[in-house]
Structure formats: structure tokens, C-alpha cells
């Protein structure tokens, strides 16, 4: 019995041990945790040297730059917030911001980041300014553009209709596809959005005071957009094989491999093509509008948010000031391929290429995601509508009517 008791005592002690060790708490330097989204092209080396350089310059602060895959970022933030233990700062999709504000989780950026850093941010990138308060510091902002494989065609379509004609002309599956269309759900609704905006539509009616009214995906513009997408995919069959089983991440490599004439894509196209060692020259142009409409690209921004419940926000602000110097931020932009959000960096020679020029133009007329609570669910509803049309289960009108009704109901309208 004695031996048994000793064994159990050890077992229980072992179970409690970690508590003793950690409960003691090391109250030394303030620690800043930063959830660092793993953009394609970012190297581990860059992350590590940024972390080291900051700690060297600020020996009184402990910095942890935690690499988090994009796919898991939303989960990780949700868990840590719900668990009452958020990081000081994190990269977020700006579209999550309203949801985070609904949780009362984020704090104003200007409280912690110096004025000189904020003054250096391009005003157009300040998507996260809500009711006059900057709730997320832009970290990457990029409008979407069209890339053309010049070894298949050099024709730059001015309208969607022209694009379709040319796509049909060059289409020669399985060797060459007219254009890339991701048909599998991914977290963003980008592809429907391109066509919707090109048809002059938007997701919601925008009231004079800037608030969102009823869902308008089933407007004539919405129906036109989805009908057109369905036509490309199922009637003309000019999209890549198995498009319904491929999301953005799976379908774009078909373009990098030189097998598709057109793709709607973002700033990362150049670094991704470099990684895939593509052997053709791309042409960059605006995503064309439908005939009679104005060019309206989609712009997507990511931000850095400060979480209220974290302890060392002041120190985190210090880090952001450090990071947003050209020395680091411009290097970051270069690696991930996004046009800089800072004024000083955008003047640097490496950001004067045709790609950046096209991106810059696109940004002028671009629209972003609706900034609203619950967008994740609504975009999922629209995704289902798009897929149902692709699967011929519903007509575009039926599917979008149903989606709009569902969304309005969910928003209590």
C-alpha cells in the first residue's frame, strides 16, 4: 500500500507540477505577441530578423512574432479572444473587423501608434476607419486585376463580352483554357464579386447615411453576373477542367503553368509566378466591366488590429512604429508583392513596375467588401447560390432570390 501511495503521490504531483512552475509567474519584461499571417513569399528569415532587430533595439520588450497560416488565422484569433487571452496585435482580414468590434475586442490604432507612422499611410488604404476612428492599421491593400498569358493571346479586352469572345477563341482544352474560374468554396467570395462589380452591382443597397440596406445580389446586375459566369463555365466551357473542385489556391496554378489565357488575380501574381517558375510573360490590365458599365475592381485590405484585452499594447505600438519604417515594411511589401500602404515606400523604385502601375490604377475606382457583422455567413450563403447554379440545380435568378431572402432574414430586415 505504501508503494502504491507513493506512486499516486508522484502521479498527482506530476499533474500539478506545471501549475506550480508557471503560476510563479515571471514578471520581467512586457511581452508582445503578434500573430503574423503567413503571406506567400514571406520568408522565415525575414520574420526572425525583424523580431531580433526589434528586440535588439528595444531590450526592455519581449517580442514574439508567431507565424500563423492564413487558413487558421480566424480560428486562432477566435479561440484566443473567446478564451480571454488575445495577442497584443494580429494581422486580420479587414472584413473581420466589424465582427471583432461587435465583440468589443479591438482598440483604436491611434492610441498606440505614433502620429508620424499614421501620417505616412496612404489615405486610400484607410479602409478600416469606422466612424472616424481607425480600428485597424492597413498592412496590405491590393485591388484585383486581370493577368493575361501573352504567349496565348495579347488581346486586352475592354468589356466582359470581349473577354468571353476571346476566351472562346483561344480555348482548346485540355491544353489551353480561356480563363480561370474557381468554383470550390474558399473563405472569400472574390470571384462572384468580380463579375457583380463589373455589372455595376453590389451586395447591399447603401443608404444615404452609409449604412447597409437590403441585400441586392438578386438585382439585375447580380443575375447578369451569375448568368455570365454560368455561361462561361457550363455553356462555353472555357474555364479550367474540374473548376467546381478547385478553389482559388488550386486553380490559379493552372494559370501559372501557362495553360490559361486570363485570370482575375491580385498583387501576389508576380511572386507566385516566380515561385512556380512560369515561362511566359504576363500582361496586366483592369478586370473589364460589362458593356455600358464602369470599371469597378474589387479591393481587399488586411489590417493589423490591437486587442483591448491584451496587456502590453503600448509596447506593441512601439513595435509597429519600428516595423513600418521603410527598411522593414518596404521589404515586407516586396516579399508579398503588395503595393505599399505607406507613402514613403510607394515612391521606392522597386514599386514602379507595370504590375504596380496597374494595381495603382485599379485602386482608384475599387470597391471593398461590405464591412458588416455576419458577412462570413452571408458570403457563404451567396457561395451556395453560385454553386447551385453551377450544378444546374437552380437558375441564377432563383438562386440569388433565395440567397437575398435568406440574408435579409438573417439580418432581420
Amino acid at each position, binding site marked *: 500500500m505504501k508503494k*502504491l*501511495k507513493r506512486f*499516486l503521490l508522484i*502521479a*498527482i504531483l506530476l*499533474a500539478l507540477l506545471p501549475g506550480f512552475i508557471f503560476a510563479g509567474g515571471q514578471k520581467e519584461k512586457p511581452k508582445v505577441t503578434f500573430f503574423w499571417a503567413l503571406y506567400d513569399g514571406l520568408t522565415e528569415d525575414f520574420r526572425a530578423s525583424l523580431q531580433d532587430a526589434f528586440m535588439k533595439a528595444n531590450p526592455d520588450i519581449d517580442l514574439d512574432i508567431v507565424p500563423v497560416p492564413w487558413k487558421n488565422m*480566424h*480560428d486562432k484569433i*477566435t479561440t484566443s*479572444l*473567446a478564451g480571454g487571452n488575445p495577442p497584443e496585435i494580429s494581422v486580420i482580414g479587414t472584413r473581420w473587423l466589424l*465582427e471583432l468590434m*461587435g*465583440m468589443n*475586442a479591438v482598440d483604436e490604432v491611434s492610441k498606440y501608434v505614433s502620429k508620424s507612422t499614421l501620417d505616412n499611410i496612404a489615405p486610400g488604404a484607410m479602409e478600416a476607419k469606422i466612424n472616424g476612428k481607425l480600428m485597424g492599421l492597413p498592412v496590405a491593400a491590393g485591388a484585383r486585376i486581370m493577368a493575361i498569358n501573352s504567349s496565348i493571346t495579347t488581346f486586352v479586352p475592354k468589356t466582359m463580352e470581349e473577354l468571353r469572345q476571346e476566351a472562346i477563341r483561344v480555348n482548346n482544352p485540355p491544353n489551353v483554357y480561356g480563363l480561370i474560374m474557381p*468554383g*470550390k*468554396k*474558399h*473563405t472569400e467570395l472574390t470571384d462572384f464579386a468580380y463579375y457583380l462589380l463589373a455589372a455595376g452591382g453590389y451586395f447591399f443597397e447603401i443608404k444615404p447615411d452609409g449604412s447597409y440596406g437590403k441585400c441586392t445580389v438578386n438585382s439585375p446586375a447580380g443575375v447578369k453576373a451569375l448568368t455570365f459566369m454560368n455561361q462561361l463555365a457550363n455553356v462555353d466551357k472555357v474555364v*479550367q*477542367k*474540374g*473548376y*467546381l*473542385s*478547385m*478553389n482559388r489556391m*488550386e486553380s490559379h*496554378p*493552372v494559370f501559372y*503553368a501557362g*495553360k490559361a489565357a486570363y485570370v482575375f488575380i491580385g498583387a501576389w501574381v508576380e511572386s507566385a509566378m516566380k515561385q512556380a517558375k512560369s515561362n511566359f510573360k504576363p500582361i496586366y490590365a483592369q478586370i473589364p466591366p460589362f458593356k455600358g458599365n464602369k470599371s469597378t475592381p474589387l479591393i481587399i485590405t488586411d489590417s493589423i488590429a490591437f486587442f483591448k484585452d491584451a496587456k502590453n499594447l503600448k509596447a506593441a505600438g512601439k513595435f509597429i512604429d519600428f516595423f513600418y519604417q521603410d527598411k522593414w515594411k518596404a521589404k515586407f511589401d516586396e516579399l508579398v508583392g503588395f503595393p505599399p500602404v505607406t507613402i514613403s515606400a510607394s515612391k521606392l523604385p522597386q514599386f514602379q513596375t507595370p504590375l504596380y502601375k496597374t494595381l495603382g490604377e485599379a485602386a482608384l475606382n475599387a470597391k471593398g467588401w461590405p464591412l458588416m457583422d*455576419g458577412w*462570413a*455567413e452571408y458570403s*457563404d450563403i451567396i*457561395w*451556395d447560390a453560385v*454553386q*447551385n447554379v*453551377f*450544378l444546374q*440545380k437552380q437558375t441564377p435568378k432563383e438562386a440569388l432570390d433565395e440567397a437575398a431572402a435568406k440574408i435579409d432574414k438573417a439580418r432581420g430586415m
Partner: protein
Amino acid sequence: MSSQAVVIKKSKLLNEEARLAYILLAPAVIVLVAFMFYPIIYVFLMSFFDTDKLGRLRSFAAFKNYKVLFQTKDFWTITGRSILWTVIGVTTKTLFGLIIALLLNIEYRGRKFARMLFIIPWASAVPISAMLWQWVYNPEFGLLNFTLQATGIWKNPPIWLGQPISAFFACMWVDIWIGIPFMSLVFLAGMQAIPNELYESAYIDGVNSFQKFFYITLPGITELIMIATLLSSLWTFNDFNVIYILTKGGPGGATDILITSVYKNGFEWLKFNIASVMAVVTFLILAIVSIVYAKIYFGRERK
């Protein structure tokens, strides 16, 4: 030692027995209760409350969440699909497991190596395996369809994840694939414990292989099959990674099951109350299955 002494010792044992049992169980039970009691209770609580975006309880809602969910027709489709998913999954895993176990039970050179190779699907992480399969199924760069076509096995293979029915079975297969090694190992072990004399006497009686399997092997491992299929049912029902990585529940909702809906409602839409109701429904279904199993198991134990 006299038999009387044994009896005395035994009765003394009985007095000590319960106390000893509790002491021995204490560490495991303490850890389980410390870490699982609150999470499980909280799931039940959330299902009866309105929750905010962080899963905090706001106001008591009684059965409102249940009503809301039970009235959506998707919910019943999804529940039905989860059951179908589990039944097909566990049955196929068991069948494959049995066949492979029978094969690995034969003595030949290189058997040890073959056993190790069969373990591979189990030995790598589920999310990674699912990603690997996504790559295999890829219609453009994937080697599966390429190989099927190049070897002429299947001239016109489907786009596996692109159509509702093929997507369901393609996901199903990945789940099965991951689960096979565990099953075959458990069964193999069971077969090795069956005394050889049974087979030898059968051989003398001129019994054929099928009869041997049904009259000797299968009864010998019935209990193992029970435990393994029970655990496998619980795991299969709750397997979230495979579907989420391969199809995200699509196309057109064709591969959505309860656990993927739980994830979608909870982590993506932050509707923790609805996610909790689904979790509770999952629990009830699995509890019924377990109770039935356990009844049979404890029933056999008494014999």
C-alpha cells in the same frame, strides 16, 4: 495453505477492494473531470442560451435554439448524411481491416515490412493526409486521374471533388483510408491470439478456408470487432478535417455533415449556440450507439 485461509484473505480483499479501486482511479478521473467537465457542461449550457460572438451566455433561451435548428430542413439532411457517412465508413473500414489482417497473418518473408507499410495512412496527421489527397484528386495536376487514364484503367474518370456524389464518396474514401490501419492492426492482433490447435483440428476435419474464417476466426475476434467499431463510429462521426479540407462541405452542400456544420457555425459564423445544439445532437446519437454497444459488451462479460 488451507482453503480456509484463502477465503479469509479473499473477504478481506473485498473490504479493501472498493477503496483501492477509487484510489487507483483517482488520478485519471481527476484529470478527466478537471479538463472535460467544464467544457462539456458548457456545450450543454450554450445550447440553451443566446450567446454572443465569443460564446458567452447572454440570456436563457430554453429550447429556442433547438426549435430554430430543427425547423431548417438542411439540418435533417445533414444529420442523415452524418449517419450514412458513419455507417458506410465504419463498415468499409471493418471489411478492409479484416481482409488486410487475414493477409498479414500469413507467414512469409517480408511480412514485418508489409505490416509497417500498411500503417502509413495512420502514421501521418489527418489534416496532412487530407491535403495530400486533395493533391492526388486534383483534376489538373493530380496523379490519380492521370494514372487512371495513362494506364487505361479508366479512360474518363470523374472530377472527384467536382460533383456532389463523387465528392461524397471521394471524401468518404479518404476517411476510410485513414481508418483502415487501426482496424487491421486490432484484428490482426486478435487473430494471433486464437490458439493454433483450433485451426489444426479444423484442418484434420477437412474444413475449407471460408468455414475456418466463419467458424473460428470471426468468433474469436468478435469482441475486438465490437470495441473497434464502437470507437471507430465515434471517431468517424466526428471526423472534421477530411471534409473540411477536401470540399468545405460542397459542392452544393453535398458533403456537409454535422461536425463540419458545427465548425462552420461556431468558428466561422460565431453562432456558438447553434453549434452547441448540433454538438448535443451528436452526443445524443453517439450516446445511444454506445449504450447499445455497451449493453451487449457487458452482457457478454457476465457470461
